[in-house]
């Protein structure tokens, strides 16, 4: 195992984020605060409680998930797309590193960044509403697994994308709608039966539900199902990344 390489890539990526620290932190914090003001204070005041949890507090896990997903994908996809775009990727590809080491470096850094941001969102939330965490261990587990799987997913997007447009495409067209429709701001039981069934095909629902359970012990689907879904998603992403490096897809001719 070339640990020096993992460390080099990881620190390089973290250093890159540090250069743009202000954008990295300020924009998610501002947008989350806006969500709290709009959904929590303005609309939330008209909704009493969901499963005995005040609306403002109910949406906190969903908001953290939204940030976690968006930031993991953005950080990881950009992290690998950029060297591909400017050509510096040659060095990583000619280095004595295995796919596992490259992934550990890039995806590890992206996951770290999104975990830090998610934590900042959580802290921001406590300024607006009373947040309770019933199962801290599960909370951290869901938090970390989500950050890791979606960083992997972002990494795959970054390798697949050959234009900046494509880099934006999947997060914008697929991930954001899935998060919004996956129960970030409501319980799916508030939907008509037909749409409840449709929503069950939305993988993000399971993430949010499991994550919310670790806060308030309320969930739309069983927590074991949630965990299983995350692990399946993680396995699919790992398999894809393994295949990418095995075949050199979009990396080597």
């Amino acid at each position, binding site marked *: 195992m070339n640990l*020096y390489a993992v460390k080099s890539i990881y620190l390089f990526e973290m250093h890159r984020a540090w250069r743009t620290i202000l954008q990295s932190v300020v924009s998610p914090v501002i947008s989350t605060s806006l969500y709290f003001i709009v959904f929590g204070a303005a609309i939330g005041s008209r909704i009493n409680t969901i499963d005995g949890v005040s609306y403002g507090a109910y949406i906190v896990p969903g908001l953290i998930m939204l940030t976690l997903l968006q930031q993991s994908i953005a950080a990881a996809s950009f992290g690998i797309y950029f060297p591909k775009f400017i*050509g510096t990727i040659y060095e990583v590809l000619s*280095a004595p*590193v295995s796919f596992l080491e490259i992934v550990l470096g890039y995806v590890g850094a992206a996951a770290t960044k999104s975990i830090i941001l998610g934590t900042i969102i959580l802290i921001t939330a406590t300024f607006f509403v009373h947040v309770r965490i019933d199962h801290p261990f599960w909370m951290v587990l869901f938090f970390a697994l989500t950050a890791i799987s979606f960083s992997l997913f972002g990494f795959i997007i970054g390798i697949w994308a050959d234009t900046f447009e494509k880099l934006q495409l999947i997060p914008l067209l697929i991930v954001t709608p899935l998060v919004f429709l996956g129960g970030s701001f409501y319980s799916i039981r508030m939907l008509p039966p037909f749409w409840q069934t449709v929503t069950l095909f939305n993988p993000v629902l399971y993430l949010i539900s499991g994550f919310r359970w670790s806060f308030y012990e309320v969930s739309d689907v069983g927590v074991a199902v949630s965990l299983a879904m995350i692990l399946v998603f993680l396995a699919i992403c790992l398999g894809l990344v393994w295949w990418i490096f095995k075949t050199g897809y979009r990396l080597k001719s």
Partner: protein
Amino acid sequence: MDPVIAISGLSKTYEDGYEALKSVDLTIGKGEIFALLGPNGAGKTTLISILCGLVKPTGGSATVGGYDIVHDYRKTRSMIGLVPQELTTDQFETVFATTSFSRGLFGRPAKPDYIDQVLTDLSLIDRRDNKIMTLSGGMKRRVMIAKALAHEPTVLFLDEPSAGVDVELRKGMWDVVRRLRDSGVTIILTTHYIEEAEEMADRIGVISKGELMLAEEKHALMAKLGRKTLTIQLQEPLEALPDQLGKDGLELAEDGTALVYEYDTRSERTGIGALIADLNRADIRVKDLDTKQSSLEEIFVRLVREGQ
């Protein structure tokens, strides 16, 4: 000669069906400077990229330091330093940071003193803590060389290292390359500057349309393939070439004051003796004689033309 690189039957057909390398066989010895020459699109970069792991070969095999480049890629790649043809750098990083990054990436523990030494050798030490985007093109190219040397490689690939580097610095770079060779590093460089190959290389390979036309020791190559030109200055100018002198390769200079005879040093009979005798017989008096070895460039141009 201990082979450091052994290539056998190496081929590459790109996905679009283009055959960029056609079964190349080549051995490169330890501590040698090998210059790879060839016109644009000949396959030089493709060959180097395969050895470095950037392009997947579609046939044949290669070893570096006795290890297979595909199966033992960790071993081979940690021996190799690559300076690619294209200038690609992380504009926002400092010279020192980017060079240290390369060292770590290639699995070596940090060694700031060594990095500083490399930067000094490449006259970059003044720019150590500057961001790369503030450097000139020639400096950036040297940063790429520093990055390639950061992990103390024993095999160094330089893909057109002197493109965009001024004459002064090119000389400095050659010195660095020679010093590296003296310390046992094997160097493979591609270049379009024939004088660079002529000046630097121990051996020269010529590649054209994916085929390695030859790989030979430089002096042997020049002696073997070298044509010489014999220039005969005449005491009195001639109007036309006398019939007695009807000989292949003989021409009268434009102003008629000299005869120019091109001959092949490889052939048994150069025809010089006969020419001199002919001159005597025709009573043409000679003022001076001068011979010139043809340059590598001429050899190279001829080879490529013959290959077409």
